[in-house]
């Protein structure tokens, strides 16, 4: 009903073939919470834009998982997309798309936007959310 073009499921299958550990069921990735699907979608989109290759992504993600395990992460699969998001932020910064400071600035702005938005209303970012 949305009229939007759906992505080629083959692209997602290629991603799950190239990147180890993506939680899946019989026909593709599964997510525990909506933000996980959004993080997955952003990596897919950046890959399509050739910001990184899947081997490059897999290496960054593996490094993030290793780092988390060294810090005591139980690695039960529940935290998979936390590592995924860490890898995404790291690559975005390494590729010069956005610095860590910029990421923090936008996170604080979204936090401000949430705070002034009545519970239940859609949260939208406004210029005055940036300090």
């Amino acid at each position, binding site marked *: 009903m949305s009229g939007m073009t759906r992505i080629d499921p083959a692209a997602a299958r290629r991603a799950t073939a190239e990147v180890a550990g993506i939680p899946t069921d019989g026909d593709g990735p599964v997510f525990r919470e909506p933000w996980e699907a959004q993080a997955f979608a952003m990596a897919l*989109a950046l890959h399509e834009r050739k910001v990184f290759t899947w081997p490059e992504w897999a290496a960054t993600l593996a490094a993030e998982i290793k780092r988390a395990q060294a810090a005591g992460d139980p690695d039960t699969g529940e935290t998979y997309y936390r590592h995924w998001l860490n890898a995404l932020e790291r690559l975005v910064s390494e590729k010069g798309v956005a610095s860590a400071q910029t*990421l923090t600035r936008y996170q604080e702005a979204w936090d401000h936007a949430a705070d002034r938005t*009545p519970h239940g209303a859609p949260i939208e970012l406004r210029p005055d959310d940036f300090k």
Partner: protein
Amino acid sequence: MSDHAHEHDHDHDHGSELSEMQLRVRALETILTEKGYVDPAALDAIVETYETKIGPRNGAKIVAKAWTDPAFKKALLDDASKAIGTLGRVGDHLIAVENTPERHNMVVCTLCSCYPWEMLGLPPIWYKASPYRSRAVKDPRGVLSDFGVTLPKDTEIRVWDSTAETRFLVLPMRPPGTEGWSEEQLAAIVTRDSMIGTGLPRVTS
């Protein structure tokens, strides 16, 4: 949300809250959109592809249990949050509304798009779109017919408007011909739309 690592030092009685992970995802999406790396519509399309693959999708199991266990059904209709609390977490106050031959229930959120995703997975795109939100209240029968659902003329259609605090789960009628089915078999015919009230359980034989 399971994620409350983010520290808040302000009053949330009247505001909204995003978890640390949500904040980080939104920040990244905004930056990537502004810089032209991603198109929000394309991201939505990717997420939409997986909309039935997000969240524990407990709803169907709950409905199947209510169909087979009268005590659970009573508890569910009395206080859904409490009844379901034993099966998994529910974020907000949840009310189960039962479909009967006399009354069909349909859920909408006219204000935004409140949705019990812990029960039903990610909301479908149409649920969040303004045509559904505005028409469901004015012309529920027309909306149902768009979804291919035709109800008897004397069945009342009750539309429930979700609020920030209260979400609804429709308990559909158990279809005839499912006598003796196991909870697993029953859960398999409970569609997401049947728990929003825009569809009916689907029996394919």
